[in-house]
């Protein structure tokens, strides 16, 4: 299932999509499948399955702790594909969010093939820019996968245009200059970056997703007012870290958060958990 179809649907409904991230293998492989199923049941439209990596330079402490837990628990690349398969079976598109080296090591075409076979939608690649992505662009075409690259406040207009042209599914606008992690206030850079990105996509063109820092429904509503998708990561991981060892409590907390965020992307939502 592709992200393209889902985002066309939410756009037709006049709302933003909710994209939820969780690393595969956190708190365990089975645990991540259970939590993601709860997120989907409570209203996440698109899932980002994180592939745990030893050197996550774009991630703040919350996601680092989760991916370290996953790696310490023995999570392998094949486990990430297994989580993707489980999510795809729930009927929502599942993207893999991965640093580049694990894909290169697995074999770019082989990874694309196995991801496609697992029902995965495509890849979000935080440390792969289109300039270096020749092999992946070709593999994504061969296996009809979405490819989500990032734009940032520091991107020039030329780079934004080049990146948008390389994306399929949506383009990921990293709203702040920084690493992943919950933030109190949404960035004032975000609307500006989205406007600059839309100058490259055209109004009815490639959807723009905004991520980094959203923690509650009110922030999601704020972002949903100018973006096509609201991407939430650390906020899902934090309550699970707090409730480690009590999966039921973790899932309950994540479900509450998802409902609030899902209301947010529909224009409502609260300011706290």
């Amino acid at each position: 299932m592709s992200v393209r179809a889902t985002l066309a649907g939410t756009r037709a409904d006049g709302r933003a999509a909710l994209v939820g991230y969780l690393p595969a293998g956190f708190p365990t492989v089975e645990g991540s499948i259970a939590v993601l199923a709860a997120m989907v049941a409570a209203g996440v439209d698109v899932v980002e399955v994180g592939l745990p990596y030893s050197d996550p330079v774009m991630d703040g402490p919350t996601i680092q702790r989760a991916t370290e837990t996953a790696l310490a628990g023995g999570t392998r690349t094949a486990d990430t594909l297994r989580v993707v398969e489980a999510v795809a079976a729930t009927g929502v598109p599942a993207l893999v969010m991965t640093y580049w080296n694990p894909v290169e090591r697995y074999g770019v075409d082989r990874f694309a093939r196995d991801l496609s076979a697992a029902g995965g939608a495509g890849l979000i690649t935080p440390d792969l820019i289109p300039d270096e992505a020749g092999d992946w662009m070709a593999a994504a075409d061969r296996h009809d996968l979405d490819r989500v690259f990032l734009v940032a406040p520091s991107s020039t207009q030329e780079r934004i245009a080049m990146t948008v042209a390389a994306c399929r599914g949506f383009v990921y606008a990293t709203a702040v200059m920084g690493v992943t992690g919950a933030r109190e206030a949404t960035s004032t850079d975000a609307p500006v970056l989205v406007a600059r990105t839309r100058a490259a996509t055209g109004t009815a063109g490639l959807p723009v997703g905004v991520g980094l820092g959203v923690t509650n429904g009110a922030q999601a509503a704020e972002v949903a007012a100018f973006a096509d998708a609201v991407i939430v990561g650390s906020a899902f991981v934090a309550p699970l870290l707090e409730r480690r060892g009590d999966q039921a409590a973790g899932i309950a907390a994540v479900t509450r958060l998802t409902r609030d965020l899902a209301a947010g992307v529909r224009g409502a939502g609260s300011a706290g958990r």
Partner: protein
Amino acid sequence: MTTYADARPGPGAGATAGPDASGHFGRFGGRFMPEALIGPLDELEQAWRSAMADETFRAQLDQMLREYAGVPSLLYDATRLSQAAGARILLKREDLNHTGAHKVRNVLGQALLTKRMGKNRVIAETGAGQHGVATATACAYLDLDCVVYMGEVDIERQSLNVARMRVLGAQVVPVSTGSRTLKDAINEALRDWVTSVDDTHYLLGTAAGAHPFPAMVRDFTRGIGDEAREQVLALTGALPDAVCACVGGGSNAIGIFAAFVPDPSVQLYGFEAGGDGVETGRHAATITGGDVGVLHGARSFLLQDADGQTVESHSISAGLDYPGVGPEHSWLAETGRATYRPVTDAEAMKAFALLSRTEGIIPAIESAHAISGALDVAAELGPDAVIVVNLSGRGDKDMHTAAEYFDLAEAGPELGPGEARQVADERAGDLHFDETPGETDPLP
């Protein structure tokens, strides 16, 4: 003596032929970085290129290097080591530079560039603390704020260098993530940089990372080779047969190689940290024992597992204890222009003792890897060979490790005259003195 300012990219420095416009050395290098850092990397490249084209900048850097850092360093004809080695060995004395290593060249270059970019804050990673100390030094000298990221494990291993950095006014930030060593300190510095890039320069300590770092660090350190090439010509009237250096991230090696790459008669040897032996898996021999992948912004050789997760490296030498290597070395290895070999901890420590006792020069343990490798090259090339070895740093920082390795620390005060020497001899083993042509026992 050619100074830094008028050292043109040497005869055929163009033949170094790298990187291309997008920062690639063959299939290596490039930019595997978050998009948020691509703009800043472009700005850095522009600032660096414009600085290098600016006579005033180059003259200022040249003056700093001469008057503050003690550059050009000597090329020393190491006759007693040569006797032991069985070939003529010339040592490029980077150990005599201010702060005790080649690293000061790169650090002063980048710190001056930081000023030129109008930034007032510098961040750096450090493993052993050598690059951290050099950076803290340059920041004190040029009045820049300095933050050094250092893994908690390394902070414990290198407490004196932590103190040195703090004395110099730097803030040392412990890194508690991942393996809590150098690679995690680089991750943390990158996380800082993406947040602070408007007023902060990331002063990377070696010729690795995303473009333009490998080329920029090479060009700030290539004075080593430019000087050595001229010095060896003046001394012997000919080019050397071989040039040897140790390889961690690769800055001292590329710094001395760059001038000789266009000289086909000069063999280039890089010696990696073989740790307990490449076959044991406990090593830092990235090119000899690793595979191609992407780490810290570039495609290069690295130590990784079957899933592409970075594997921890092992070496007695903290400065070589890094699971990656600069992309230009991967390219020189792949094209066959340079040869890379592992040197084990034990071999390096033997060379450490040999140089100390034949020349009265205590090398950094990193540099001892180059000495050890050069002994093998000497044996291969024979007595007429002239070999230049980059003595990248001095061993003061390593006395704790050496004392422990040779069992001198505990026993020290209770040993009578000659006894400590005996213990060390046992540990260092046969130093090959008997095989020395024309001399049976050069030790006094």
